[in-house]
């Protein structure tokens, strides 16, 4: 289901069409909604690098998303840093956190790995509850978007949108490049048969750790962007419900596909916006989607559509 090693000539029109859509869509659809979808799409793509290509289910990715959001928001608001520097700081923190959490969690496999990441993320949550910089229940509000490179005023919604789109597209291209590189091939070999990869002489632990750090760095990038878009970093971003949501997006869209997490993220965000007015039903519907995905279509939306896409030569 994955895209072939380079974007083939038959895929080019499709990729360009998507890009074109991304450029003109804010004229028709509320841009803040689109930015939310792009931020979560990036988050899900980062998460999918682990689950889809290494077979590691992290249940604690909200830690990187949320803490990165806090750091970016704090740097932009309290220190008055420019947005690009604030984002860099957020990503740097997520990368460092990812290195520590990954190093600890990779000691165990399978569901234990999932539980450890979840528990460590909860540790991050409790720190966020108590730390003075996060402002507890209130979160960091009124974060200034600032001037990008001192030139572009991001308080203009359209400027912000195109900045988010640009970061999103570049990140996705990078992640696409990673999974189709020799490094990515080793990751897939580990996913499919870890003992074989070990016997071939690969240092499996190191590969897993690098993938984990990469994934947390991009999850952090998504969180940093989100805190600038909504001018808010809050406890919801670090809670384990957020970790669950990113799993849901990836599962719904299709694990191990490039397009899937993006589609899943937009669907989940649309569901949240649509049902926002009726309280707990959002959670119930998310739960039902989880159950239905696991029982009936484990390959997700893009997996179900894969034969159709394949016929048109869009995916390999």
């Amino acid at each position: 289901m994955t895209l072939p090693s380079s974007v083939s000539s038959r895929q080019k029109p499709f990729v360009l069409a998507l890009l074109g859509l991304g450029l003109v869509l804010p004229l028709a659809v509320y841009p803040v909604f689109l930015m939310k979808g792009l931020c979560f799409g990036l988050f899900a793509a980062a998460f999918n690098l682990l689950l889809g290509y290494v077979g590691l289910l992290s249940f604690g990715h909200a830690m990187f998303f949320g803490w990165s959001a806090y750091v970016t928001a704090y740097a932009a608001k309290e220190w008055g840093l420019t947005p690009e520097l604030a984002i860099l700081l957020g990503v740097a923190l997520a990368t460092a956190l990812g290195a520590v959490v990954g190093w600890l969690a990779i000691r165990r496999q399978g569901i234990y790995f999932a539980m450890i990441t979840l528990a460590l993320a909860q540790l991050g949550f409790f720190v966020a509850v108590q730390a003075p910089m996060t402002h507890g229940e209130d979160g960091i509000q009124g974060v200034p978007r600032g001037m990008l490179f001192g030139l572009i005023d991001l308080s203009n919604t359209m400027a912000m949108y195109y900045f988010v789109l640009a970061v999103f597209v570049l990140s996705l291209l990078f992640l696409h490049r990673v999974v189709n590189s020799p490094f990515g091939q080793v990751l897939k070999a580990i996913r499919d048969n870890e003992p074989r990869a070990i016997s071939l002489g690969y240092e499996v632990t190191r590969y897993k750790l690098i993938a984990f750090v990469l994934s947390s760095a991009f999850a952090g990038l998504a969180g940093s962007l989100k805190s600038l878009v909504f001018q808010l970093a809050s406890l919801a971003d670090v809670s384990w419900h957020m970790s669950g949501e990113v799993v849901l997006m990836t599962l719904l869209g299709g694990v191990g596909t490039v397009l899937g997490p993006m589609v899943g993220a937009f669907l989940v965000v649309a569901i949240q916006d649509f049902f926002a007015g009726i309280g707990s039903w959002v959670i119930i519907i998310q739960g039902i989607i989880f159950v239905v995905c696991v029982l009936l279509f484990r390959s997700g939306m893009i997996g179900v559509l894969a034969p159709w896409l394949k016929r048109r030569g869009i995916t390999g």
Partner: protein
Amino acid sequence: MTILGIPTQALFGQLLLGLINGAFYAMLSLGLALIFGLLNIINFSHGALYMMGAFVAWLALNFLGLGYWGALIVAPLVVALVGIVIERTMLCRLYKLDHLYGLLLTFGLALIIEGLFREGYGVSGQPYSVPSALAGGWNLGFMFLPIYRGWVVVASLVLCLGTWYAIEKTKLGAYLRAGTENPTLVQAFGINVPLMITLTYGFGVALAAIAGVLAAPIYQVSPKMGSDLIIVVFAVVVIGGMGSIMGSILTGYMLGIVEGLTKVFYPEAASTVIFMVMVVVLLIKPAGLFGKGA
């Protein structure tokens, strides 16, 4: 009277609270270990079913007039029935797949169950009073012991040790252990393994429901009481290693007490101390205190 500068009243009070929390950790991680042993599924919905147990007790009291002792029998039966339906209709389809799907499915179920109770009863807690037979307390001289809290510790000890005895020392337990080792072989001896699996799941979630009823008079009955607890229990499970039934019981009590002591000496760290212990244990013994292999 003070010990290490802490008034004994406060010290023993927190120790008792820790012991009670430990009792709940032990009952829940025991159920998780049982279910994991035979079904190979990490039951993420365990916390939600614990909450359901507490809610069934509350509903039974308010709508049927059924008191605490009745609820202690009815709630586990109701929840076990729900568990059996879940196992027969959904979980049984996942046994041949990667373990992760079981985790994801039960996570979805937890969201549904919690969401439905939130929708029905809001997020604020409902009070449930201590049964009159267990009201009041004893003054032990060095501390005041509410009778109900003492009862919870005793009840959970009896339940945990009874389960341990049934699994490690009886014939039924031997079948169960054999079923986890080699289901095909056990089936060849004419034992109905699928039925055994279903009943084990029912029993495991019934344990969670009993814990829920026991918890109802101590904590408020609220839809989020399960999700708050389950992640701590997961950390307990990682620390203990889920290698043995006794291991999960001992780890549960031990960590409850560690948490209680932290509340006395350094309250700021109380909510995180179990996770920190997890980090330390992972560094020294990645398989957990009682675990075998990865």
